[in-house]
């Protein structure tokens, strides 16, 4: 029996599974946005455009997906003869694809909302929060959104793996690490993250130093990727 590289298949299946969750998630989020528009229209105010509106929720969605990924897939895949390595590589690829998908969906919804607002007035606030300011270029706004989604999933995955491997006492320590990582991520992108936890750390807004933010963010991603691989490389499967 010749062995075939299984990680592309694993990546596709993991993406497909989580994308199904994402469709549910976006259905609710879009419904929420529509309800929000109706409410603010009555009060004569406006609501953030969908791309900005969804950014926080998408990040949390990715975090939860990451946590679930560790528990839902590890035992199942290894039981069916997939190596931890194939599962790891497959997970990373699927997470990249998922992060891309959850960036493109809000963008598309945003475009549709803008097209509609050309025809009929929608109570949408086009002044965005500084973090995802589409005014400074859609490409960079989408890029930041994508990196953020990817990072949140990796952080969730790290928490899940920590709990899976060490149980809830030490697993709780991983929540601490995750909060630090989330704050660091927020710090790079000027979300007030770290500075809200540790007061004397200065805030670096992304537009002030995009290079520093990008470098720091990529470094954080690299550290997360290496840690998760080290923790799962020889992990024992629970039965």
């Amino acid at each position, binding site marked *: *029996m*010749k*062995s075939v*590289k*299984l990680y592309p*298949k694993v990546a596709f*299946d993991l993406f497909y599974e989580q994308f199904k969750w994402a469709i549910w998630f976006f259905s609710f989020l879009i419904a929420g946005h529509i309800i929000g528009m109706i409410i603010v229209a009555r009060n004569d105010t406006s609501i953030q455009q969908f791309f900005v509106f969804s950014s926080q929720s998408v990040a949390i969605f990715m975090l939860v997906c990451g946590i679930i990924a560790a528990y839902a897939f590890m035992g*199942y895949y*290894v*039981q*069916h*003869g*997939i*190596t*931890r*390595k*194939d599962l790891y590589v497959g997970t990373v690829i699927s997470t990249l694809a998922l992060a891309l998908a959850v960036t493109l969906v809000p963008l598309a919804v945003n475009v549709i909302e803008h097209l509609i607002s050309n025809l009929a007035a929608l109570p949408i606030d086009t002044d965005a929060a500084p973090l995802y300011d589409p005014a400074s270029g859609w490409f960079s706004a989408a890029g930041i959104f994508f990196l953020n989604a990817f990072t949140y999933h990796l952080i969730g995955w790290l928490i899940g793996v920590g709990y899976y491997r060490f149980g809830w006492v030490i697993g709780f320590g991983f929540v601490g690490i995750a909060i630090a990582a989330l704050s660091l991520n927020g710090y790079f992108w000027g979300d007030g993250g770290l500075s809200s936890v540790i007061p004397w750390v200065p805030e670096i807004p992304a537009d002030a130093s995009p290079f520093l933010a990008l470098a720091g963010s990529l470094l954080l991603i690299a550290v997360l990727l290496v840690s998760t691989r080290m923790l799962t490389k*020889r992990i*024992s*499967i629970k*039965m």
Partner: protein
Amino acid sequence: MAAKINLNDVTLRFGKFEALKDISLTLEAGKIHGLIGRNGAGKTTLLSLLAAFREPTQGHVEIDGEAVFENPEKMQQVGFIYEKNYADEYQKIPAMLEFPESYRPNYDKAYADYLLKRFNLPLDKPIYKLSKGMQSALNVVIGLASRTPITIFDEAYIGMDAPAREIFYQEILADQAKHPRTFILSTHLVSEMDYLFDNVVIIDHGRLLMNEDYETISAQGASITGAADQVDAFVSGMKLLNEQKLGGTKSVMVYGTLSEQRQLAARQQGLEIGPVSLQDLFIHLTEEAR
């Protein structure tokens, strides 16, 4: 299409607790191996090493001469079926079976459909709603239909009623005749399953007590049946494993091989000689080791 398993000096420790102690054994390809041991003997732990669920603390676990842990080719050859918690499994059976179908190269869908019918499994109910026995039968279907060169059933019959267990045993034998593979069946229902085994591995307290083919093991003792007083006279001085009496007739299980002379003498006295039951031998051996 079957694979040979080798364990060399395998020890597994959880902290200070030694779950497996220095186990070396070979399981021949294409045979049905019975793995028996009392509760907590280390059966599942041993099997989880074969399935690459964990690594041994010391020693090597190999399939056809190659280490199994994180070996993509070897891991794909092992199917490990054990009792799973399906309390959160909202999928239905057909959706559940898509996964082994997609990842197991030898998976046989027609055979799976046939087995689902034989076990009378409902395809339109979510799995968490199925009875324990049905969930076990589903595990059995996955294990059989995946046709992995090494198929491990770790007490896979839990919750299954007697007719369902009987189907399980029949199907193992039927498929083994058509598509030979290496089966490992762990059990403590020894008397019910012993006829399935080509080879028997007994472990106790994490140690290997015995790894012999079935005939060799049955020759390690004998059952002697006949008139009660004659049987008593014949077996005096031998190690008795079990005795049963019905009216004037008595049947005794003894431990130790009977020489041909002794067998002849027994027959001349009108005594019937049969093989020892694996169950009695198992009970005796694991009690002795305690």
